[in-house]
């Protein structure tokens, strides 16, 4: 393992507080100065059914789950069964005494702690998980004091009894597991890290960008964006309009974008499908609007709680006719924070819909983020005329294809915005020459994006034996695989950040030297690979690693695929 990291997991039934417990553990780990990456397994149901929450602690930034679970807290037998294949040899399994006798535990080793009994003694089974946290701290050699401080802070408003019970639970769990051998991490200087999901980061980034309005309809895994925004925006004069469906959400957003507000909507695949017609309206009427798509496993309802990156083609090509769209995909919460701002700048500068393509893993799993890495971008509000002259024509055919607009309320700026093809004035027109001029004007607008400075994020592509290409949350696993591979080969990575317009020339250049290219995607048809082909990038040396079974793609799987490819090429 290139980095010193430890993976802790707690598993049990939904509704048993697994999430809350995971949050405690992750937060304290972050406070202790570790880099933290969390991931969750959960189902589309409210109570019951297996769930687990995994926290990876490391001394370098990690953006993916590890190959093995090092410590497992098992509240149910099912937890052990399900996590078996991932358990490291000799990994401690902290579990109630009841489990001791039940085989198999695979490579693991049960550290039996009477979690429930202790909780009952303390007076409430609600603290059962906290006993396990105390035990985990002991096994991992983490200072209990930091857990205690957390409990004192966060549980204070629940009253002194609650605080005392939880502290008690922590201590008793800790005491019982002291001396149990476990993987240890070097202690770190306490850090100023925050724990953010991509969804948090998008909501915060939008607020930072001056967005005060969101029109949306709940859907897993995008709902948190709306909930976070509903919590925070009113403090800054903003609001969430919970609409009746996604058709209403996108159209409300377009109305607000037309009127001059920074506005967003957020959804997942099914909602993206429903928004396709509206997105086309924004393309045609040249209205800035931001759509967040937090992808989940499709098609149709698919697997709503499982990760996938399978809306790429739909985000780009999903509308009837040929409307202009910009699609960007952040890989980390930091990028999500920046991209929410960037997306508004792009939407207003280019007067078109921007799709921020996130995914479930990025969207809902917490990671540590250095607050200093949450960068504020200056706002680019695009070309807006405060005092239009008499000849004002909304869709004036300009060299760069961008036509200055007026906002409703501006005297003498009245015009008709429409999804029908129109003359420069905005009036409906079916004239063939006008059609050609308007189509090419709209297409021309986006040409400069071919040269976007941050369209691609390259690492070591020059003279590489193998280049790993990916987008979105997969980039974290790719980076880790690349680090591991770099011990034996020259390996490069390309994160395609601006997916559309695809920066074909830049990509061509980045891949020129590579002896082989592996495009890594969490879907079943290789959508990025297909896009690369459209851009003229392909040939024998380009290969795909596809993963779409609903589990997270792990760095070790990428590493193995790359090794196989290198071995094959070497023949």
């Amino acid at each position, binding site marked *: 393992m290139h980095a010193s990291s430890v993976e802790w997991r707690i598993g049990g039934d939904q509704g048993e507080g697994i999430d809350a417990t995971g949050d405690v553990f992750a*937060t304290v780990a972050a406070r202790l100065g570790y880099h933290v990456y969390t991931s969750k397994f959960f189902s589309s149901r409210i109570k019951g059914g297996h769930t687990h929450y995994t926290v990876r602690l490391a001394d370098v930034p990690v953006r993916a789950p590890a190959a093995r679970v090092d410590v497992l807290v098992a509240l149910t037998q099912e937890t052990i069964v399900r996590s078996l294949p991932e358990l490291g040899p000799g990994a401690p399994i902290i579990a109630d005494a009841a489990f001791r006798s039940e085989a198999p535990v695979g490579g693991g080793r049960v550290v039996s702690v009477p979690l429930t009994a202790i909780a009952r003694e303390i007076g409430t089974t609600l603290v059962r998980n906290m006993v396990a946290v105390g035990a985990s701290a002991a096994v991992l050699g983490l200072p209990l004091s930091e857990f205690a401080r957390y409990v004192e802070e966060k549980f204070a408003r629940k009253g002194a009894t609650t605080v005392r019970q939880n502290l008690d639970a922590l201590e008793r769990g800790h005491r019982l597991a002291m001396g149990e051998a476990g993987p240890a991490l070097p202690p770190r200087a306490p850090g100023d*890290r*925050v724990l*953010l999901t991509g969804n948090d980061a998008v909501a*915060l980034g939008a*607020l*930072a*960008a*001056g967005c*005060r*309005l969101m*029109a949306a309809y709940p859907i897993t895994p995008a709902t948190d964006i709306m909930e976070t925004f509903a919590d*925070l925006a*009113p*403090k800054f*004069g*903003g*609001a969430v*309009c919970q*609409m*009746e*469906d996604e*058709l*209403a*959400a996108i*159209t*409300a*957003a*377009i*109305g*607000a*974008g*037309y*009127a*001059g*507000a920074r*506005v967003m909507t957020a959804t997942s695949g099914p909602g993206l499908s429903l928004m396709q*017609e509206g997105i086309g*309206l924004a393309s045609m*009427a040249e209205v800035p609007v931001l759509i967040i798509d937090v992808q989940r496993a499709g098609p149709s309802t698919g697997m709503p709680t499982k990760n996938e990156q399978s809306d790429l083609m739909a985000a780009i090509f999903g509308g009837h006719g040929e409307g202009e769209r910009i699609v960007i995909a952040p890989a980390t919460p930091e990028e999500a924070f920046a991209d929410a701002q960037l997306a508004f700048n792009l939407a207003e500068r280019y007067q078109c819909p921007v799709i921020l393509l996130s995914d479930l893993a990025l969207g809902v799993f917490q990671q540590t983020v250095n*607050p200093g890495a*949450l960068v*504020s971008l200056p*706002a680019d*509000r695009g070309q807006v005329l405060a005092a239009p002259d008499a000849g004002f024509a909304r869709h004036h055919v300009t060299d760069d294809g961008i036509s200055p607009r007026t*906002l*409703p*309320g*501006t*005297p*003498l*700026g*009245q*015009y*008709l*915005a*429409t*999804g029908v093809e129109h003359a420069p004035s905005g*009036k*409906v027109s079916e004239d063939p020459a006008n059609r050609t001029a308007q189509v090419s004007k709209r297409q021309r607008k986006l040409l400069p994006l071919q040269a976007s400075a941050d369209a691609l994020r390259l690492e070591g592509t020059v003279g590489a034996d193998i280049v790993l290409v990916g987008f979105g949350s997969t980039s974290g696993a790719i980076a880790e695989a690349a680090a591991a591979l770099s011990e034996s080969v020259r390996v490069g990575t390309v994160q395609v950040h601006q997916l559309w317009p695809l920066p074909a020339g830049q990509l061509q250049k980045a891949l020129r030297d590579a002896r082989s290219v592996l495009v890594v995607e969490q879907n079943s048809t290789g959508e990025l690979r297909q896009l690369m082909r459209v851009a003229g990038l392909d040939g024998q040396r380009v290969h795909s690693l596809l993963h779409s079974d609903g589990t997270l793609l792990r760095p070790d799987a990428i590493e193995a695929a790359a090794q196989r490819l290198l071995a094959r090429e070497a023949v």
Partner: protein
Amino acid sequence: MATVTLQDFRTAEKAWWCPGCGDFGVLAALQKALVAQGVAPHETVIVAGIGCSGKIGNYVNSYNIHVVHGRTLPAALGVKMANRDLLVLAVGGDGDGYAIGMGHFVHAARRNINVKYIVMDNHIYGLTKGQNSPTSDRGQATKATPLGSVEASVRPLTLALAAGATFVAQGFSSYQDQLARLIGAAIAHKGFAFVNVLSPCVTYNKLDTYDFYKQALHDLDGDAAYRPESRAAAVAKVMEKDDLVTGLIYKDPESVPYEDALPGFAREPLAGREMQLSPEEVAGLLAGYR
């Protein structure tokens, strides 16, 4: 600005409706109402649907957005939320509003956003050349129902009342003064105001004609016994009259518009303001994530 005149609300374009189309009357009454209410063209936004009716925006010199079929109301909500100083009108046809747009209609009514909704109801799909619409009569033969439609008609007034609308009125394209007055009252209302306008399609609807309406309509404004103050009485009346009424049917004097009721929502327009957070504000928000 100086007093507005009808001329201020006109565009150079000649309305392309068929000669005799009821929509001419709606356009005229709308322009009169705008003038009477003294609103400025640049502070007026018309959100129009797709249909013959939806062309109306082309003929009013205001800001206009011509959206996709059925979505006038959510778009109007968006405009109003972005800039609450604007007068926002949604206009469209019966197909646009009561077929594909039905869900939005019911929800706009209950949400009570301060948007005015004018439906040009000709009981037919005009622009697509004569298929039945939700308000077509049962038994009416159209291109899509050559042997007669078998569905009960949508009753827009009853539905609006059932959905919780705080202002419900019906006008008739030929009754210009009343219609202009009703649209004016809708503009003055604080909340969602719905005006259904019977606007005959002379080309594709041979049943719901000017003559028919002149005979059949009961004027509630002129009915001394009727007071538009009780939702229950209003529902009973429109059901009794099979929706064949004109006038103000219901107005809730206590109406608080959505944008005013929303906790924390700014009293100034969002549009035109720079509201980026300062680094300190961002840092403040991050405190919640430690």
